[in-house]
């Protein structure tokens, strides 16, 4: 039975922090790795040990297989958790980990490889009786070949990377004339993101919902599902709001989708945590999209409703333990919002800066998974997701109103985030009604701009003082100020004991 007593976490940010927490509760040593940019990141601070693995660019650090395996060996780790992103769906990495005598906390390399080739996976799913969207095989990056294939599936079509995932390398095409540009861009993005430029085409479904099923297998042949998640709220194919259960999934549909998901996972002898993604069309038909052979960003909503700690379960399964549950009985409703360093009013441009203040939301039914702290530098090297906020409620409405309250509580000063955009999404009548689909943001929020803050006049007065005086953080030290007798320092030259007019 594999020993898992010390886990090297081959990742950074919130997911590294999240994995450390489950390791600690299990009494397993957590070893962090960090690039030069992350030397004082929260995941480094929280771990039992931390190993420097290279300079800031991911290619030279978090994607450097040799450096990661050397770090595992140097730190005495006997297992590796890849998190999501980076090398989490890289079969070669999983094999390299095993070859180094370490336990890979994830599915067998063969399952990763089988699902990693999106075209081959599609064929396999068709054979396993899992419904798939009409599509071509891999095509040469040539407008003629794509035009012929599109004529078979019908427009609109979407061009996708064969090695892809997460929206990288995807291009929607509504007419033949747009094919050449889209082919070029998709191939380039695919090469950049996956070092594999192969692309293909499939029928594009209008306004479908993105509904996925969490599955879990153990090494004793048991394979179960943990219900679905709806992740339709996407900007540029990037999920930003997720929930479980889906407002659109009836018990009958759930039975069919979860059965199909388990069938899909069984087709690749799946072990560990995985997610089978479907598109659900407006007629209640669902189609296999892809299987993510790793922990999903949005896994907390499933943890809320099922009570299963998915990372803990991953570690136990990696040790050879049977699944700790036979079936799950989800309770209530859970939502997740992803907090990104980006400006939704400016085409979601990534934002950079320093986290000068961070107030995390808390309280009943609120969970904050963060990878930043006061003083963190948000740069361009990595994914701009800073944190995830998830809420639970006995009903969807309770979870939703808690989320609105939690987002209001979340204060991050120094970096532009999508916080207020998320608040607007959660407050939109169509979201309240559960009328969600993958074009939701494009349909309702294309021209979103933040409203003017209600207190902007008085804020402007304070800002004028702060911007023109040297009073803010320039004069005394914190310690000296705190030691002063008066609880409030009088501002700059604006000493006054007067009352409001």
């Amino acid at each position, binding site marked *: 039975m594999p020993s898992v007593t010390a886990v090297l976490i081959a990742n950074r940010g919130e997911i590294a922090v999240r994995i450390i927490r489950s390791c600690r509760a299990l009494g397993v040593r957590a070893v962090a790795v960090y690039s030069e940019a992350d030397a004082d990141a929260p995941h480094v601070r929280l771990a039992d040990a931390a190993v420097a693995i290279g300079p800031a660019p991911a290619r030279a650090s978090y994607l450097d297989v040799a450096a990661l395996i050397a770090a595992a060996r140097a730190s005495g780790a006997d297992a590796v958790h890849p998190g999501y992103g980076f090398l989490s769906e890289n079969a070669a990495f999983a094999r390299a980990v095993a070859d180094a005598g370490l336990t890979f906390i994830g599915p067998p390399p063969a399952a990763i490889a089988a699902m990693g080739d999106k075209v081959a996976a599609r064929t396999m799913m068709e054979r396993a009786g899992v419904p798939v969207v009409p599509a071509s095989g891999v095509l040469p990056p040539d407008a003629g070949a794509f035009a012929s294939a599109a004529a078979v599936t019908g427009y609109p079509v979407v061009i996708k990377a064969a090695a892809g995932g997460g929206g*990288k390398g995807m291009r929607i095409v509504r007419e033949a004339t747009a094919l050449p540009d889209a082919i070029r*861009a998709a191939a*380039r*993005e695919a090469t*950049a993101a996956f070092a594999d430029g192969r692309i293909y085409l499939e029928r594009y479904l209008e306004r479908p919902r993105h509904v996925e099923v969490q599955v879990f297998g153990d090494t004793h042949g048991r394979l179960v599902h943990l219900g679905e998640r709806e992740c339709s709220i996407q900007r*540029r194919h990037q999920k930003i709001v997720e929930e479980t259960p889906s407002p659109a999934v009836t018990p009958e549909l759930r039975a069919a989708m979860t059965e199909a998901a388990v069938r899909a996972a069984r087709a690749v002898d799946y072990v560990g945590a995985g997610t089978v993604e479907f598109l659900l069309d407006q007629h209640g038909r669902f189609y296999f999209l892809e299987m993510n052979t790793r922990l999903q960003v949005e896994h907390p909503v499933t943890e809320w409703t099922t009570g299963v700690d998915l990372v803990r379960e991953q570690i136990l399964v990696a040790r050879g333990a049977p699944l700790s549950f036979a079936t799950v009985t989800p309770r209530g409703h859970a939502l997740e919002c992803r907090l990104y360093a980006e400006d939704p009013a*400016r*085409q979601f*441009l*990534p934002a*950079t*800066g*320093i986290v*000068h*203040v961070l*107030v995390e939301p808390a309280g009943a039914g609120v969970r904050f998974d963060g990878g930043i702290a006061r003083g963190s530098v948000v*740069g*361009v090297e990595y*994914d*701009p997701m800073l944190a995830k906020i998830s809420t639970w409620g006995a009903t969807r409405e309770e979870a939703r109103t808690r989320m609105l309250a939690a987002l*209001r509580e979340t*204060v*991050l*000063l*120094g970096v532009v985030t999508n*916080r*207020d955009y998320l608040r607007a999404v959660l407050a939109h009548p169509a979201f309240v009604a559960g009328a969600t689909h993958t074009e939701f943001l494009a349909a309702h929020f294309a021209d979103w701009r933040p409203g*003017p*803050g*209600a*207190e*902007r*006049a*008085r*804020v*402007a*007065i*304070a*800002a*004028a*003082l*702060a*911007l*023109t005086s040297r*009073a*803010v*953080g320039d004069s005394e030290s*914190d310690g000296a*100020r*705190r030691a002063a007798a008066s609880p*409030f320092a*009088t*501002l700059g030259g*604006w000493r*006054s*004991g*007067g*009352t*409001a*007019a």
Partner: protein
Amino acid sequence: MSVIVLVDGEPLAVTIAHGADGLVGRVGDVEYRGTIRRDGETWRIELGERVLLATVVRAADAVWIAADGEIYRCVLAAEERAAAGTARVATPRVTAPMPGKVLEVVVAPGQRVAAGDPLVVLEAMKMETVASAESAGVVTRVHVSVGAMVEPGQLLVELDPS
């Protein structure tokens, strides 16, 4: 003191003076009287009826204020103009809209482009962004090459609009 403060981009004319009974602030036509006191990052803004307990920090480029569940990013219009002024010259200059890496330089000096034509493709965090021509013209200089890292506002391409 009179300044124009951009609060989340909205210009507000602010005048502040000492009054007999405290601070007198004027924003546009509205007058606010009272006090502002600070304890580190916590500012107690008592202007008019309501007490605002705000968190105020100064970042490199702006003052950030959290108050009443909202977040405000404030800069002096003078500084914003000064920064913008240096970039605004007669020749149309296309600058990087975001930090990132140059993936592709689509044009070369001497090439004629139409408004909207792509000039440079940038990548940050594996998302592509295209810097396009805002108006038609002829490319006079290209300042970056493939693989270069660029800062927001960095000059990419110069056009001659003639």
